[in-house]
């Protein structure tokens, strides 16, 4: 690839620019009242038309969009040998584009939404996402790749007063219920700016975070889908309905999906609304895949559930119960059950919440909120390559407030806001319903987003093949050598402190997040005594966001994690010791609001990870991220 390639591929852009620029200049030079003046040219009148159509009072067509390029510069003094792009790399997107075109970068560089009114009650929107990615291996300077991708999503909204209909092949986010179509919770530090950050400026973002509760569900509790979606609100009898037919990105591995392998989801939700926002719903999820087009291996998942919420005064109860029927060549035909129940009390003195949940090991719906620990059901169908199965969490040390299958558990959350201080404390104790085997897993809480870029989407990476990278997180799995046949107990506790203080006319924020987790073979082990168990993790993170100007925030970050396993786990061949990791991350950044809806964001992070036992598991280096975001 060289100049001729660039010219050949992008020469058309040059031709258009060559036509536009002199045309524009020529038009500008004419006298204002001349028929050839800019105001009277097609371009000038088109500008007027654009302003008119963007005026809400005269809107027939509209154009919205976000321009969001990234520059990520990574320099690792030492790291994993399989790191994509090498230890030093430059990338123009949150996730480097692998050589395989079947894996995408997720974050559009330019997202456009073009919409209009077909009739008074009928509007449409078309979303275009332009993904531009350019990676280089600065060490070798040979791995250049660039790719332009588009996403097309067609949305039609028909306002008969009740119907909202969408059909698209881009990505349509949808949500039905926690046990059917939703999404997993991933905690994102404020320091990391995530894709699809929807806040228009940093002040709103930090303020929104301060207002949120400790049991924050995933901001993105919707699953990406393709197909047909119909939602009807305000139906007679205070009913609401949703119907979906299509696919999610978890139906099949992308190359199989594009090849036409049959795999589709049919889902519906019917809700009855009552007073005080009380609600009862019925959900049905049917995912029928053919794992092998020829031999007819049926990979079937059906989940039916009922859910409801009830509010009275300070008491709020939510819950859902369902049954899952599953079938595939490896698992056979199974039926299992799952449920969760949450009670929140809005006490003036001490608001608290309690959640209990229970879910069989064969209660599997990869799109729901529960972490799946059952390897017999995987992303892409049972015969897909497990290297890219991002949705297997074997005996996972999940955060408090979240759920997993093959578990029963209880959560307790206490949260209190005292003026400018918000305190949330949460704890979950859970246990497996049946012994899952000799693999356990836990997330790397510090540097998770940066780590996930080392080998995106792939499992079994790193020097010992233990690291699995998913979207915005990195998970580590390792083996047990004793008591693997015993039921495992998990415990997770967090303390989330947020303090807001004024600086000038705005608020600044100081946050601290601490968590402790453990996995063992009894509640006592997990909660109080590590050494008889398997694993203990400790994580501490502090973030500071200072408003120094109405347009500028300075941000700072510090995070540490300690992960230590017991002698009952796999031991290092180097020194015979179990896993003993420390990780740290320090960073600073600037949020510069250049104009309304335009921001420039800089982050620099120093990161390090060491395992005293497994000595090859080590990386150290820095990462800089520059992001420009323009919303229009």
């Amino acid at each position, binding site marked *: 690839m060289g100049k001729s390639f660039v010219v050949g591929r992008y020469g058309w852009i040059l031709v258009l620019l060559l036509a536009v620029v002199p045309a524009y200049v020529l038009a500008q030079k004419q006298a204002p009242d001349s028929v050839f003046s800019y105001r009277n040219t097609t371009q000038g009148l088109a500008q007027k038309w654009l302003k008119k159509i963007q005026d809400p009072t005269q809107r027939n067509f509209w154009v919205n969009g976000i321009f969001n390029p990234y520059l990520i510069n990574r320099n690792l003094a030492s790291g994993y040998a399989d790191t994509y792009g090498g230890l030093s790399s430059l990338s123009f997107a949150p996730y480097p584009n692998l050589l395989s075109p079947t894996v995408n970068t997720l974050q559009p560089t330019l997202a456009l939404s073009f919409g209009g009114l077909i009739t008074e009650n009928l509007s449409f929107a078309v979303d275009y*996402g332009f993904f531009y990615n350019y990676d280089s291996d600065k060490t070798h300077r040979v791995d250049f790749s660039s790719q332009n991708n588009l996403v097309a999503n067609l949305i039609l909204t028909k306002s008969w007063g009740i119907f909202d209909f969408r059909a698209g092949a881009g990505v349509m986010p949808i949500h039905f219920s926690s046990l059917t179509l939703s999404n997993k919770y991933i905690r994102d530090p404020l320091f990391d700016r995530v894709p699809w950050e929807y806040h228009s400026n940093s002040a709103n973002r930090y303020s929104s975070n301060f207002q949120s509760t400790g049991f924050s569900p995933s901001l993105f509790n919707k699953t990406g889908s393709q197909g047909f979606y119909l939602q009807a609100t305000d139906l007679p009898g205070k009913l609401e309905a949703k119907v979906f037919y299509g696919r999610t990105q978890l139906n099949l591995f992308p190359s199989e999906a594009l090849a036409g392998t049959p795999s589709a989801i049919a889902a519906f939700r019917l809700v009855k609304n009552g007073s005080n926002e009380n609600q009862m719903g019925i959900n049905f999820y049917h995912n029928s895949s053919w794992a092998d087009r020829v031999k007819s291996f049926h990979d079937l998942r059906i989940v039916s559930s009922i859910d409801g919420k009830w509010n009275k005064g300070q008491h709020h109860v939510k819950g859902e119960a369902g049954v899952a029927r599953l079938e595939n060549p490896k698992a056979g035909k199974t039926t299992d059950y799952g449920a969760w129940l949450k009670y929140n009390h809005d006490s003036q003195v001490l608001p608290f919440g309690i959640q209990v949940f229970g879910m069989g090991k064969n209660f599997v719906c990869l799109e729901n909120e529960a972490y799946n620990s059952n390897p017999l059901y995987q992303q892409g169908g049972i015969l897909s390559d497990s290297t890219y199965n991002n949705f297997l969490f074997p005996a996972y040390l999940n955060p408090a407030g979240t759920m997993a299958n093959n578990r029963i558990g209880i959560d307790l959350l206490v949260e209190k806001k005292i003026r400018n201080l918000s305190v949330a404390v949460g704890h979950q104790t859970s246990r497996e319903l049946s012994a899952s085997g000799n693999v356990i897993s836990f997330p790397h809480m510090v540097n998770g987003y940066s780590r996930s870029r080392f080998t995106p989407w792939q499992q079994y990476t790193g020097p010992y093949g233990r690291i699995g990278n998913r979207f915005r997180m990195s998970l580590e799995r390792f083996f047990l050598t004793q008591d693997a046949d015993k039921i495992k107990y998990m415990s997770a506790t967090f303390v989330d402190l947020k303090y807001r203080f004024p600086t000038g006319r705005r608020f600044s924020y100081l946050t601290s997040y601490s968590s402790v987790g453990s996995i063992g073979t009894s509640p006592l082990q997990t909660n109080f005594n590590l050494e008889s168990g398997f694993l203990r993790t400790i994580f501490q993170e502090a973030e500071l966001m200072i408003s120094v100007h109405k347009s500028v925030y300075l941000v700072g970050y510090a995070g540490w994690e300690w992960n230590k396993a017991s002698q009952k786990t796999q031991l290092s061949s180097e020194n015979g010791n179990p896993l003993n990791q420390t990780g740290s991350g320090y960073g600073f950044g600037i949020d510069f609001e250049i104009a309304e809806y335009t921001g420039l964001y800089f982050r620099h992070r120093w990161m390090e990870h060491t395992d005293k036992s497994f000595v090859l598991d080590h990386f150290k280096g820095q990462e800089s991220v520059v992001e420009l975001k323009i919303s229009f």
Partner: protein
Amino acid sequence: MKAPSIHILSLPKTILAGVLLWLVCTTPSFSQLRFHGLGRTVWQSQTLSGNALQGDSTSDRKTMQGYALFDLRTEYRFKDKINLLVDSRVKNIIGGFGGVGASVQLRQVLVEGRATRFVTYSLGDIDVELSPFTFSNPVDTGAQVLGSVFAIRRNVLRYENFTTGNARRTMERQFHYQGNQSSTIHDYWAQVNSWRMRGGKLQFRIPLYMDDQSLKALLFGVTDRATHSFSGDFPYRIGGRLSYSADVNQHGFHFFGNGVRFVTPLTSNGKNENRVMSGGTNFWLSFPKIYLFGNMEAGSSHSQWKTDEPLINPNRDDYFLHSKLALSWKNRISVGAGYSEVGPYFESPGAQTMRLTGNAVPSFFSFVGNNQLVRNQGMLDRIGSETIYNQSLSVFRQVFLPQYELVFPYSVATPNRKGFSLSSTFLDQEYQFDKIMVSAKADFYQEILGTGVTDRRDFTRFHAIGITKLNRFFHTRGAWKLNVGYRFESSERGGDLPVDFKVNSWEAGTTMEIVRMLDLMIGIKRLNAKGNEIYNNINRFNEIESYRPFTMNQTETLIGTGLQLHITGECFLMVSGYFNRVKSSERLSTWNLNQFYTNFTYEF
């Protein structure tokens, strides 16, 4: 897997787009800038079973495809003198997320306008049509569909192949039968008969002394739409038409002459040069209750194959003639008769290229026999498979499927035919039907020269359609339409190499508005093809080299049922199922194909 990418614009389109952009930016006092568009999301899943998969462990049994696309047409009209059309498309394949499988495409670009008072021009992607023997996209009789459940599928393909409008440039969702421009007799057999080409045309209209007379001329120079490279040899077609017409008190005549020249490079060095000339006349006499229409055309073709081998440069000349007379009473009952003769060596690529290619690979379940054998086409493929429509004109005699196109596989310009036709149409009201319409055609033809023997084949074709609005009879609140059709074709020959092949096909379809905006559609098509025939194996010069006898006993059934929700006049959601059963004596040609299909379309 092929990497998704933005399609690179071809150089001419890039230059044209740049010129257009210049014009848009600098042209003062524009008259009108409009945006139109179409959005469509399609999802289909299908299963294949039957003897065609016997012993097959690798060919697909179940597949699924879908896409979402958005076409945006920008129309710019400058003072009613220049009309610019730019159609751009974004298309996303269902299956890849976040951009994988997505593409952007400049679908069509057109500049048309009035150079002077008498001259109009068109540049870019244009439609070209002359006469059925010189330049015309042939009627697709084998897949003549009447039921809405089938028509919607076929209309998607017609939209994709730009056969949705001739004089008009709108993105029509439904094809509306349009009358012959030279006749007030509604021709319910008419389909859009133009070829979408790439190039330019000039049209002249020279006013004469009398307002009711006109002299018109058309000149065009085009290449095939599938042509992407203009370096080196590429196929081009030039031609034109000169016509004179006069109409006095609704009586009139129209003289015309057509000429077209094809130059087509061959893959093996060389090229084919073909020239077709014709002349003819139409006349009409209109009385209070009687309307008489006549048409005559005659012409010749000259085809020369030029190769690097000096002794192998065959060339052929031949002729054709065609005449038709039709009589209409109160525009309700019409009868017609015609005679046609096309020489055995008559070659006219612009008229003889098939609309649907018989040996095209279907877009779903392409292969059977352990992925070694192309699956034979069925009726569902012919209304739902994008790969079957022809994108380029062909100088070679294409493979045809006798069960779908037996008598005139290459349109009325099929060589080596002579015979006469009869037709009649009945409407229950003048100019349109209120309750019922019936139309029938019969063709009795014979070969001019025997192929391989001195005996000649006799061809018979009979085709009838009936449309009735049942809601008029049963006084239902909602619309209710019933369509029926029947087709019979036969080919017979006695003597040393007898041939006896018959095709019986019938179809019925109904569309009923069960509640407001919601239609129930049911359709069925059934075909039986039986007998023995002989394929002509054609060499690279369209010469018959050998013969391959075959025997066929095929029964095919296609059932379709669905619901269509008319959200607005321009927007609908359709959910349907199709069941295609083919039972054939040919090897690996018996299969069952079931398909679930959803289509959401809106226009603006």
